[in-house]
């Protein structure tokens, strides 16, 4: 099997999204499709998947030109597109999901559940998947859901599978499971196009790469011949910093303590948490999914309850009952999963950037729009937010710029403690650096900053010290010199600091 896309062009209005892109992929290859947000990756794949039509160019499968105008054409041609938002129904069992929209029926017109069950078992066997087809999809974790979607594609004889950032919301062990699935597909001679921002994963699983930048294919080749740094440079078109950004600051240890937490416990999420953060310090909190770090800081922020323990701000004990009180006390929390937790899609950019400060910049309940606009303008410049008018919809912005707007809203609240939960999730390389710059600058200004992140690299590059959590407890603290990916992973998987390092390398 060989799929070729030749001289593909596409523009939306005056915006040329793809300018003459050609590439090909063969069965048994895993090809990474890289590029910043807005580089044209999604459009290219939407053309191949039949979601949109190209303005010019042709697609060949095994040397025969094909016309793909809708997703059904694509499926018939053997191309399956696994979107980030999975198309599964949680309240149906796996085997019914496998036949969604293509149900097998008996002669009398009712569902032939037995046949559907058997076919599912068959495909699972072929793919080496150990899953009970009768399990409800809602009970599966995110990786198994991916796997069910892939199996569904395989059942329809897919020869090319497009995976759009499949690992974004997965834990490491889940990622490994999906990777194993991908290896199996490779053995079955299926081609995979893997869209991802995570270069570590690309290095691990892919054998080829192509890089798009501003609608042009700027690099392609064998993954063995490049480094992560090369790939990052291709993506942004200039030299990317990968060095540590940590400043050599002795002062942070002696400066004033802002936030202190003692004995904080929750029935499920976290227990016996002790920590203290000083003004101007950047503390990283990391661990694997399920470590309880988000819940811990949401509890400090008043969005989650805690069972016992004490929280001190500027050495004064505080009891925060809701998020509003947290903000009044100078605690800000930028949540993870921007789309679910931070973006209000029915409101415009300005409103999304000012929602936290409405009650503060107000006269008898009437919002002081001018003050908000002035404040936002200031932050827009500092954060280098690329946007049209402030009254445009928030969804008109790219992921990186959306995140910057969310950050701007917290800066407007003038926090003393800024908690950033996965601040660079779904953000392109350029915006990521902008966000790091702002974090460092805020620390200079004396704000106590907490960065929660599952990316060890992020912690190492940005933070002064790191706390690693494991199943709701702090497993260890690492200072400036001790921080490295191996040690962090060792602690995050439950290892102790003093032990010999039986490092779990991924």
């Amino acid at each position, binding site marked *: 099997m060989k799929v070729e896309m030749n001289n593909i062009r596409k523009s*939306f*209005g*005056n*915006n040329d999204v793809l300018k003459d892109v050609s590439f090909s992929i063969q069965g048994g290859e895993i090809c990474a499709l890289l590029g910043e947000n807005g580089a044209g990756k999604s*459009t290219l794949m*939407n053309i191949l998947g039949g*979601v*949109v039509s190209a303005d010019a160019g042709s697609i060949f499968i095994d040397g025969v030109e094909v016309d793909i105008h809708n997703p059904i054409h694509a499926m018939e041609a053997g191309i399956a597109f696994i979107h980030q938002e999975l198309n599964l129904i949680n309240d149906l069992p796996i085997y019914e999901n496998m036949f969604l929209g293509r149900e097998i029926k008996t002669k009398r017109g009712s569902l032939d559940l037995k046949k559907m069950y058997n076919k599912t078992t068959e495909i699972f066997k072929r793919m080496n998947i150990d899953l009970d087809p009768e399990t409800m999809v809602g009970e599966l974790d995110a990786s198994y859901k991916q796997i069910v979607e892939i199996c569904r594609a395989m059942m329809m004889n897919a020869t090319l599978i497009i995976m759009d950032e499949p690992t974004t919301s997965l834990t490491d062990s889940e990622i490994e499971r999906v990777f194993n699935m991908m290896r199996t597909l490779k053995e079955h001679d299926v081609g995979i196009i893997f869209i991802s921002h995570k270069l570590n994963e690309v290095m691990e699983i892919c054998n080829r790469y192509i890089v798009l930048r501003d609608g042009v294919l700027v690099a392609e080749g064998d993954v063995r011949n490049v480094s992560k740094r090369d790939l990052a440079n291709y993506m942004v078109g200039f030299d990317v910093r990968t060095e540590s950004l940590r400043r050599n600051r002795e002062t942070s240890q002696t400066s004033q303590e802002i936030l202190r937490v003692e004995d904080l416990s929750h029935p499920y999420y976290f227990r016996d948490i002790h920590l203290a953060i000083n003004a101007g310090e950047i503390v990283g909190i990391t661990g694997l999914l399920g470590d309880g770090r988000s819940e811990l800081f949401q509890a400090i*922020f008043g*969005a989650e309850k805690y069972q016992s323990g004490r929280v001190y701000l500027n050495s004064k004990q505080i009891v925060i009952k*809701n*998020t*509003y009180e*947290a*903000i009044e006390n100078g605690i800000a*929390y930028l*949540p993870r999963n921007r789309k*679910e*937790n*931070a*973006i*209000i*899609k*029915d*409101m415009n950019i300005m*409103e999304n950037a000012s*929602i*936290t400060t*409405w*009650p503060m910049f*107000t006269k008898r*309940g*009437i*919002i002081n*729009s001018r003050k908000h606009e002035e404040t936002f303008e200031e932050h827009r410049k500092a954060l280098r937010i690329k946007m049209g008018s402030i009254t445009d919809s928030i*969804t*008109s912005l790219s992921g990186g710029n959306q995140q910057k707007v969310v950050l701007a*809203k917290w800066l407007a*609240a003038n926090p003393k403690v800024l908690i950033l939960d996965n601040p660079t999730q779904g953000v392109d390389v350029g915006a990521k650096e902008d966000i790091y710059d702002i974090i460092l600058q805020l620390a200079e200004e004396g704000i106590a900053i907490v960065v929660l992140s599952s990316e060890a690299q992020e912690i190492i590059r940005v933070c002064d010290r790191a706390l690693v959590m494991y199943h709701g407890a702090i497993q260890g603290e690492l200072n400036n010199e001790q921080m490295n990916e191996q040690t962090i992973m060792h602690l995050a998987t439950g290892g102790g600091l003093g032990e010999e390092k039986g490092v779990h390398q991924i």
Partner: protein
Amino acid sequence: MKPILKPTIEQKTEMGKTTFLGWFKNKWSKDPLFSILIALMIMVVLQTITLGFDYGSFGEWLQAWTNNWINILRNNAGVGIVALGMTLVIMTGGIDLSVGSTLVITGAFAMYLLDTGAQGILGSVGITGIPAILLTIVLVLGFGYLLGALIGVSITKGMVPPFIATLGAMMIFRSVTQHFTQGYNTSVPAEFLQISSFKIGSFMIMPIVYWIIIAIILYYVSKRTTFGRQIIAVGSNEKAAKLSGVKVEKVKLRVYALMGLLVSVAAIIQVSRIGSMDFSNAGRGMEMDAIAAAVVGGTNMLGGRGFILGTVYGMLIIAVMNNLLNLFGVPPFLREAFKGVIVIVAVLLQRKEKTA
């Protein structure tokens, strides 16, 4: 997912400046209220033409036209006010089915307070005349607010879904009212009737004035105040709103309380217009009329999007259509069907905006 087609700046100005058609198209696709306003205008023109056939001179025609409009507006002022509150409730992602029953329970309360006979509560403690009327207004508004707040508490603290909480309240309020008002004959003091029947010039338009004032206040509240904007935030993405420091529970509670308050305003208008209230039938179907007006006016039933001005248009569209059907002599039983069609067509028309 379809890609979002964004017109470039050049196209925008081109559309905006060159032709009327261009301006119209741009407005049609950008301003969600524009299509509603056009629909309303078409109906008003239709209605005006229909009326024009029956009268000889312009003066007579104008008088008939004005009277007809005053009638339409006055008859719909109560529901119109309730629909404004309903819009805010729906914008938070909720619904209030209890409005019709809240109308009768607050109406009954008003009448018990005012009654000039032996059962009159205020009369029996020696408060009569203007003080009694003023006190009644305050107490009835407070009662409506309290009932709304109770519903709000059951929704926020009790985590009862709005549909269920207000369905329950709908049954309770009417049933209780009917039980306690069996064989009750009212005599509301004449001064109280002035609330609705006071004439400005030769026009009896007080209910319309109340409607307009409330619409202006709520328009301003929804656009410019923290409370108004937080309603949208809560309805659009409750989790994000909570994590942005919005007191979600407080916002919801206040919205239902405000709803109760507005219903009690409608109750006062109704009691003061007629001097009595039919407790078993008054306000039946009011919730559906209010929801229909909000939906025709562009409010999204899933929350997050709604327009006070749109609801006023929506109410007028439904009212003018009723009037037209009346003028055309359409049999009464068929009129509900037209209302149903209007609601569905309105949502069909608005669907394009959601995808754009």
